């Protein structure tokens, strides 16, 4: 049974529509990550699931029960906030016990649950401290501990790592992954704008943009078979190169002519009616290789070389209108600015999108 079901969920603040009908089923025990650019509505959607934000339209159920009008505390959820949201005047112990005390749980049970959560998160030595005496990572662990103590069916994370520095972010990310492994039956919904967090943590990623779902799927599916230009450009870093092209041959596989006259065969089928139409041809920087022979994809002048050690980023001018094509080549290369180079790519890793930005791939 689905742990969380969203049916045509809408949100509007007065006249301003923020979410335009979200349909989503989240299975029990699934780790789902909402990603999208700022203002896409991902945090709003999470807050609607938590009950902190009211639902303008549609139906939301958690564990089979319609929760549109159920207060947050009765939804069986727990939330971890970006800013930790610890009660500054309570000790770590009291922070974790607060919810259970409100619910009038018995003292031994409270103590048992707090200590077990503290144990999982290595917080036992800090139980008597106030939040201000803890580091950022420890504070976020307390916030997670407080969530664990609620014993929720659904865990909600609202950008929990954004306030941490880079090293702590990686460490806490791994801790969250471990936590998920330790609680296989608990559903987790996680909001982030960081695609590394999304790719590494998620069972499924939900890509949102401007109040719509663009695509839902496992991380690698989104990477390998993006449904549209938005997802193609959003997942992966640096973003996929997009080159305007025209369909010249249709059928089992499609031939497009890039700017500058070069023709490329892409192994995706198109209908005959597509012939002559404008399309977007896409290839990821890491799928490009330096071509040695005459069989190459495109040719251009190198404008910038960024040597990062493990990889070298080459900015190639001359194909797309305003932005350079980026190639990500492993290792350290002896390439100078101004050099003319040829690049090729595995045909299976080429992408083709129609004029509306939808993929031709079935």
């Amino acid at each position, binding site marked *: 049974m689905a742990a969380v079901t969203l049916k045509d969920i809408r949100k509007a603040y007065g006249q301003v529509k923020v979410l335009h009908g979200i349909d989503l089923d989240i299975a029990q025990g699934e780790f789902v990550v909402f990603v999208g650019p700022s203002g896409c509505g991902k945090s709003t959607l999470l807050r609607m699931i938590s009950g902190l934000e009211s639902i303008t339209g549609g139906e939301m159920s958690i564990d089979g029960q319609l929760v549109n009008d159920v207060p947050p505390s009765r939804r069986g959820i727990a*939330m971890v906030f*970006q800013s930790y*949201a610890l*009660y500054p005047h309570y000790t770590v112990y009291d922070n974790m016990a*607060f919810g259970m005390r*409100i619910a009038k749980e018995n003292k031994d049970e409270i103590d048992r649950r707090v200590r077990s959560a503290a144990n999982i998160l290595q917080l036992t030595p800090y139980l008597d401290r106030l939040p201000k005496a803890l580091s950022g990572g420890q504070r976020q662990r307390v916030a997670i501990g*407080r969530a664990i103590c609620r014993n929720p069916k659904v865990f909600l994370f609202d950008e929990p790592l954004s306030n941490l520095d880079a090293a702590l972010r990686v460490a806490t990310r791994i801790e969250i992954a471990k936590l998920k492994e330790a609680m296989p039956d608990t559903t987790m919904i996680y909001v982030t704008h960081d695609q590394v967090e999304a790719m590494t943590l998620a069972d499924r990623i939900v890509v949102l943009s401007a109040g719509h779902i663009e695509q839902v799927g496992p991380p690698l599916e989104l990477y390998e078979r993006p449904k549209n230009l938005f997802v193609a450009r959003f997942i992966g870093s640096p973003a996929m190169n997009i080159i305007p092209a025209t369909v010249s041959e249709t059928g089992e596989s499609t031939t497009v002519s890039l700017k500058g006259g070069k023709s490329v065969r892409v192994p995706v089928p198109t209908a005959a009616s597509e012939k002559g139409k404008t399309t977007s041809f896409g290839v990821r920087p890491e799928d490009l290789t330096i071509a040695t022979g005459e069989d190459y994809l495109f040719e251009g002048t190198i404008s910038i070389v960024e040597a990062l050690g493990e990889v070298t980023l080459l900015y190639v001018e001359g194909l797309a209108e305003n932005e350079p094509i980026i190639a990500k080549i492993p290792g350290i290369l002896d390439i100078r600015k101004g050099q003319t180079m040829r690049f090729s790519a595995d045909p299976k890793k080429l992408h083709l999108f129609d004029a509306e930005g939808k993929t031709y791939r079935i």
Partner: protein
Amino acid sequence: MVTQIATAIGVMVAGVFACALYYWLSDKTLQLVFPVPDDNVRTASRNLNRRAVVRPWLFLGPALLLLVVYLVYPVVATFILSFYDRSGTNFVGLSNYAWAVQDAQFRQSIFNNILWLAVVPAACTFFGLVIAVLTDRIWWGNIAKSLVFMPMAISFVGASVIWKFIYEYRGGTETQIGLLNSIVTWLGGNPQVWISLPLWNNFFLMIILIWIQTGFAMVILSAALRGIPEETIEAAVIDGANGWQIFWKIMVPQIWGTIAVVWTTITILVLKVFDIVLTMTNGQWNTMVLANLMFDWMFRGGGDSGRSAVIALIIMAAVTPIMVWNIRQANRETGGH
């Protein structure tokens, strides 16, 4: 009229100019006394350090001088006066203090002051807090806040005059023009002379100060409430706390420092309460407070500077520790940790 305004503006400009001139001249003098030669680095750095040490004292000098003349000297003089008789010429030892302990009116004043202390700061803080919380939730909150704050702009004497009309009593068959009495008669009760009702009249006077000071408490507490991170309240909502629990267990503890500052600030004000009592009852009908008693003994009827000085010192002794604590607390609130 025009000349007065011109004079006032002239004085203001001249005053500011004189201050600026003082700072400029004193700094110039400092530079002359401790020169910084180009060719001798040792002397230069030594003299720069000396300048840095002397400069704050030079700049603070005039203010410190005024503080000594108008604050320190009167305190010392009052202390000395308290050991002298009514004319201030014959030393009488501790007899003024002995008098105070036995005097019925002095005891009455102490009792009334304690009553004021118990009621007014608590009531102002409580109402201020409640209004601050409630006005945050309604669209006309800011209008309500301005209305509550407005009495702060009225002087104590002015406010007392306004409330005199509310408590006004007309004898015989005259129409009751006082607001309170007209309500009472309209409800079928008998009009009362409110400000002479024993014990109760103290509370009627306190209401005036509460009316004035609630706005102050509200503004400060409202700012503090806005400083509470919204997420802590949302976290409490998810934890299942109701409005009452969120208020007492999450919000109030987070602004406890500010509540204490507001409370003590009003406490200090209450210890010095004077104008309201003077205007409303002049201390009659058992409403006397220390400040009025001091005033009476010094300037009216009493004519005894010794006894008056004793009362003044007692007020100061009561205010000082609260003041010290208050300033420390306020510094901690604003100065971070």
